[in-house]
């Protein structure tokens, strides 16, 4: 399943909820979009959660959102970047998806 998050990890607990559930599924993939891309950046208090997740599931981030927020040079190693086309491919490749609102 593809899990999509679009809210800042500093603003609410959506990322925590998503990880709590998604990390139980070996084939899961996590896509960070909009303000959730701040979770893809290094050096903050969220980093260890994403590094932990990278050991268990695939983690993607939407590059246009990374770029818009000036996070280009801070992305955690191991996170795969996708553009809008890649976003569509991820949705198509997975049997289903869940947007964590």
């Amino acid at each position, binding site marked *: 399943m593809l899990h999509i998050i679009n*809210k*800042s990890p500093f*603003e609410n607990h959506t990322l925590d909820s998503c990880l709590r559930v998604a990390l139980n599924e070996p084939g899961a993939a996590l896509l960070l979009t909009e*303000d959730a891309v701040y979770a893809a950046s*290094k050096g*903050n208090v969220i980093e260890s959660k994403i590094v932990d997740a990278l050991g268990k599931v695939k983690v993607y981030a939407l590059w*246009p959102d990374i*770029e818009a927020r000036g996070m280009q040079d801070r992305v955690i190693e191991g996170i795969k970047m996708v553009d809008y086309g890649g976003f569509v491919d991820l949705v198509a490749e997975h049997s289903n998806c869940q947007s964590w609102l």
Partner: protein
Amino acid sequence: MTESTGGIDFEDEDASGVIKKFMFVNRKAPYGTIYALESLEVVLISAAFDQDVSLAFLDDGVYQIVKGQHTKAIAMKNFSPTYRALEGYDIEKLYVEKESLDQRGLTEDDLLVDVQVMSSAEMAKMMSEQDVVISF
């Protein structure tokens, strides 16, 4: 005096010379919601009324003034350069809470405009000294 205009009385000629301390508190990241851009619009309007304006950046609000924002691919206006233009409107009091920067792994060098970095305690003092605090 009217609440809707933040205490500024536009009718009374005698009150036109009153300068109040206005603080705009920014706590949202720039593009996920409209708050940051709306705040900036109001700040620029306030500059026209010759008030004592300051901006505070806390929590995700610090992301508003991070360097290197390129918004072409998300088809939204990159309004981050506008913060550098505030100086031209005599808005030079930009305060950033250190705790918010630390939590996000950011330093003053990551910011695109000159700011005063301060502790939560100093921020509390700054807020308490204001006549009007407007929150975004």
